[in-house]
């Protein structure tokens, strides 16, 4: 802005000014950092840290959303939970859902990512594949509710043409969980594939050339080069998708129980853990009990994350 300042920036004088200035700046950085962190720190303290501690506390109380208060009841909620058949049922339903969803989604995404890696880096292809991920889950739920409608849905129409016959899908107690897993696979495969694709791009090309020179075919190259080197990224993708899958909510809330029915249906067949916690907290006002279930879920997710990272040695790369 003024000549004085800009001339000071020339190389000769800069060296002389540096030590004193920098020591001065270093001392002030703590203060400056405090100011820069003020808004985010406030948000973290008030809407993450404090509620997490409060949630933990609530899990030891009989807190009711109706009364707006609760008394300490010790471990009562956790004892209730251990004896609650519906809790174990919802854990089972969620686990089945996660296994089906992650299984299909990861395999398909891996295929998709390898195909993209080999064929194209077109942004259009990637955009199309990732589109369902950007659409609200509520919209996705309504879309499939209609497509899979037992009477008028196009999927059942096609199945009938193929001679397979109509299926209940979201209205059938046996099929609702696999159907939800299928819908979520449709929604997330593209996104997962993009993460894996980015990981594949980091594998040096010369390794493929070396494998080809050694006469390795596509199949062998995939198992011996691609997959081992993709392992750290694969571990992270798995953590992300497994943890996300355990927390399925929007889709179940909108797409199950039929039109106008109770979410989690039919007959609690799709009562995933999030829907059950939500129901206990906001329909029955049992916030203390719901908080206890959320604590158990959080602990479970931490263990699952640890096991995946450990099992796939996700924090170490063979490339380094």
């Amino acid at each position, binding site marked *: 802005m003024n000549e004085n*300042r800009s001339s000071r920036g020339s190389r000769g004088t800069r060296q002389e000014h540096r030590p004193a200035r920098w020591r001065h700046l270093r001392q002030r950085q703590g203060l400056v950092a405090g100011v820069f962190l003020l*808004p985010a720190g406030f948000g973290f303290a008030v809407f993450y840290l404090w*509620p997490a501690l409060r949630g933990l506390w609530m899990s030891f109380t009989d807190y009711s959303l109706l009364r707006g208060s609760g008394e300490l009841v010790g471990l009562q909620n956790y004892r209730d939970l251990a004896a609650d058949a519906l809790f174990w049922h919802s854990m089972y339903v969620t686990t089945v859902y996660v296994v089906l969803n992650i299984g299909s989604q990861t395999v398909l995404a891996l295929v998709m990512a390898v195909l993209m890696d080999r064929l*194209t880096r077109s942004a259009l292809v990637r955009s199309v594949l990732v589109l369902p991920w950007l*659409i609200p889950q509520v919209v996705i739920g309504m879309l499939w509710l209609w497509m899979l409608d037992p009477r008028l849905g196009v999927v059942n129409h096609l199945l009938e043409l193929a001679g397979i016959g109509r299926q209940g899908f979201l209205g059938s107690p046996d099929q609702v969980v696999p159907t939800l897993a299928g819908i979520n696979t449709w929604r997330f495969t593209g996104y997962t594939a993009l993460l894996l694709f980015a990981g594949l*791009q980091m594998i040096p090309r010369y390794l493929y050339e070396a494998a080809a020179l050694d006469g390795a075919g596509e199949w062998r190259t995939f198992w011996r080069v691609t997959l081992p080197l993709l392992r750290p990224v694969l571990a*992270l993708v798995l953590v992300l998708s497994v943890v996300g899958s355990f927390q399925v909510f929007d889709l179940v809330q909108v797409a199950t129980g039929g039109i106008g029915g109770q979410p989690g249906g039919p007959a609690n067949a799709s009562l995933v853990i999030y829907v059950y916690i939500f129901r206990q907290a906001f329909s029955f006002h049992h916030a203390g009990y719901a908080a206890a279930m959320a604590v158990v879920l959080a602990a479970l997710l931490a263990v699952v994350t640890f096991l995946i990272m450990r099992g796939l040695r996700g924090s170490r790369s063979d490339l380094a």
Partner: protein
Amino acid sequence: MRESTVTVPDNHPAAPVEWPAPPARRRPTEPRHGGRWRPSRAVAWLVLILMMVATLLPFYWILRTALSTNAALFTGDQSALPPEPTLVNFRRVLGLASAEEVRAAGGSGAELEFWLYLRNSIIFSTLVTVGQVTSCAMAAYAFARLRWRGRDAVFYLFLSALMVPPIFVVIPNFVLLSELGLLDTFAGLAAPYFFMTPFMVFFLRQFFLGISTELEDAARIDGAGHPRIFLRICVPMMAAPLTTAAILAYVIAWNEFMWPLVAGNDPSVRVLTVGLSVFRSGQPQAAPDWTGLMAATVLGALPVILLFLLMGRRIVDSIRFTGLR
């Protein structure tokens, strides 16, 4: 300002520093194995194209349904094109159709106050985006550019919030807002996302770590303070990633469902996702208004799709683990 206050070293590019190119750019387009496996390449393309078709077909089908009449649907017509194409459903959802038209179209009477919910969604998403990107960019600057004791510990504390399932904090946050009397207000609705999300802090910190510090060092030596360095150097250099961050924040806020469902169920602040689910559960079981539902569904996803058509490339390129290994 740049030419006088900040002296750019000779070897430094004068143009805004380019955000590292997507990794894809490193690799040439030609097939890795030349012409060695042409037939299998064709098969691979076929599979990829089938996957794209499978991704897009359901979207076509809701559009097709939204353009049909309920009367035509109930005959069981499954033709690829809408049997009697009409825009009446969109007009119904947008409140532009007359009462007779609504009745003739088989409307169930379930009301979707589309414009109100659209307005609410826009207010909510805009509030969240502006607040979140601003405060997370500042936090990212503190984590990536300043040296202070305990920096990494605080950063990992922030990151640890990623491990907390949202429902775990939704219940206490709901209690907090009701104590503050902020339920069913935009302030209360936006507050938990307004100041930070762990993801956004992490995302932006990665970008700050990725750009060169030379310009900042030069400015610092020229006596510029941190607020000025942040606003005049970092923000302009980070324009591209900040835009990406803003788009992501907007889309994520737009799609938010559980929190607005509990904290903003009053129609005055009800967002589109919650409105759609209420519209759905208000349907009669015998004869749901499918065409109206699908028209509402299309309109509910439209803003996100438009944003994606304009900025898709940025979003697609941002999906990866930035340096997180």
